[in-house]
């Protein structure tokens, strides 16, 4: 287990995951088309895209479950296809279409998974108890998974994936179809694992979740990565569609809004929408004309570009 916990200060940082030029076709369908991703240690990386974009296919190639047509994947410096056993020891995986054994109890599932990672009996047992408590499954630990709800099964799946405190945790759509409570526990666990030092890669088609959880996001569409960056940076890429919404105490005309930096203005209910690529400059202009014309500003607000806008633009036509 030594390799799992010696991230000493001063050692050069490696990339947790480095995928290069991954490619995979299923018959005529190119599911993943030349995808390269580098995920630095310690981050929570989100892989965002509509259904069928190629997220699961990419994840399956990264976790050694699917053999790529071309390209390589390294997990903390180990090639997944050349040395799968060593690479997989560093991974915890929650597959999209994968579940735990219904014929075993919650506890048996976690214990046998821990055996695959070579944990000794004492650490298997203490870690299993700790995780069962964290995931709210202590009372049900001796029940067969067969009797569990979807949310509880997914929590067991999470438990199995984190039992060996993996340096890299990969989750494919971990919260889809879960009840509110399970969903919260799963997200909390992801955050906790990241604080404890795990690098996280998760896929989702839920924009809010990616926004709330991830430090970096790649948007994938039709097998290709179309943008990568922090959620804030991705939003800013689409700043051209920002606007300032303003209303005055009496009606005004178009002329008020002709100024450099303002692309156009249109009436919007009892307000005006002033489109700009520089909200700061537009607001200052509006304040100064209001001063000059003795207008009172009743309300003023700037729109924040949303990740959703970025997403919709990037995946348009999907």
């Amino acid at each position: 287990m030594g390799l799992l916990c010696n991230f000493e200060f001063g050692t050069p940082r490696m990339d947790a995951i480095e995928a290069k030029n991954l490619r995979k076709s299923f018959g005529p369908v190119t599911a993943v088309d030349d995808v390269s991703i580098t995920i630095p240690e310690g981050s929570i990386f989100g892989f965002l895209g509509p259904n069928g974009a190629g997220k699961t296919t990419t994840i399956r190639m990264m976790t050694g479950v699917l053999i790529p047509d071309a390209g390589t994947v390294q997990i903390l410096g180990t090639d997944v296809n050349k040395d799968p056993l060593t690479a997989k020891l560093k991974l915890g995986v929650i597959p999209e279409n994968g579940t735990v054994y219904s014929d075993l109890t919650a506890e048996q599932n976690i214990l046998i998974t821990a055996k695959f990672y070579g944990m000794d009996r004492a650490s298997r047992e203490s870690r299993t108890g700790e995780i069962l408590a964290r995931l709210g499954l202590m009372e049900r630990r001796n029940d067969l998974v067969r009797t569990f709800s979807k949310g509880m099964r997914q929590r067991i799946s999470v438990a199995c994936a984190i039992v060996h405190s993996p340096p890299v945790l990969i989750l494919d759509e971990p919260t889809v179809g879960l009840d509110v409570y399970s969903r919260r526990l799963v997200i909390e666990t992801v955050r906790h694992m990241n604080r404890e030092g795990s690098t996280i890669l998760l896929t989702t088609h839920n924009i809010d979740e990616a926004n709330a959880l991830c430090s970096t996001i790649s948007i994938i569409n039709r097998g290709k990565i179309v943008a990568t960056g922090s959620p804030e940076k991705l939003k800013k890429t689409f700043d051209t569609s920002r606007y300032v919404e303003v209303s005055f105490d009496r009606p005004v005309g178009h002329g008020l809004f002709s100024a450099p930096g303002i692309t156009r203005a249109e009436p919007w209910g009892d307000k005006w929408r002033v489109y700009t690529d520089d909200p700061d400059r537009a607001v200052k202009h509006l304040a100064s004309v209001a001063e000059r014309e003795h207008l009172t500003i009743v309300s003023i607000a700037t729109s924040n570009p949303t990740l959703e806008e970025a997403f919709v633009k990037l995946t348009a036509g999907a």
Partner: protein
Amino acid sequence: MDPNVFARSILVITEKNMRIYYFKGPVVVFGLLFPLIMFLTFFIGRNLDIVLFFPGFLGMMLFFTASSVGPLITPWEKREKTYERLISLPVILESIIIGDLLAGAIFGVAITTIVFVVCAELLHLPLMNAGLLALSFVLGSIAFAALGTLLASPTTDNPSNIMMLSSLVRLPLIFVSGIFIPLGQLSGWEWILTSLSPLTYLVDLFHASLNGDAVYPPWLDILALVIVILVFIGSAKVIQKRNLVKGI
């Protein structure tokens, strides 16, 4: 590749298989009831020499038990969607194939040993060469467990399809083997047919180690079984690897 991690992955998969699949209905039906019924049908009520035919019965027992677990595991895991999770653990294809094979072989050896001990006590059977008998048990169980694993390899997530396929393959192998007619009495095409079934060589080994009336020399039987094992495991690996590429 770290040999310790590889060995561990095989052992844990074997343990998992033993805990989950030994008690599934199809294993009990095809592995235990089937050979028992076959035995009753062919041997009881006819005036057959039990000592002469016991090696054949023992071979059939080992054949059915060892090959009944393997066909179930992979299709079952694909249907239940536990397979995807299993291959993302620190295992490789070979760990799964060998782990499935060992689970089948251990099942076969355990059941057949019990049957042998009970019968030997009751019927006062001869035992010419205990060492050779033990080797036959090991080789036979591995060969037929490998057949079971091979039968599980075609893609399907429907275990009952595979159980049907495995009966279609296993029953003819029984009928063309030398278990019902002593090999020495065969001639011409009958002899060619029986030499196609791997069961023939196991039963001949049992003849050598129990009654001492084998037709082939033991080394030939052993060689045939080893070749059969390698061919079965190799084919299973090729098919399952292809499935990994296809993503199914």
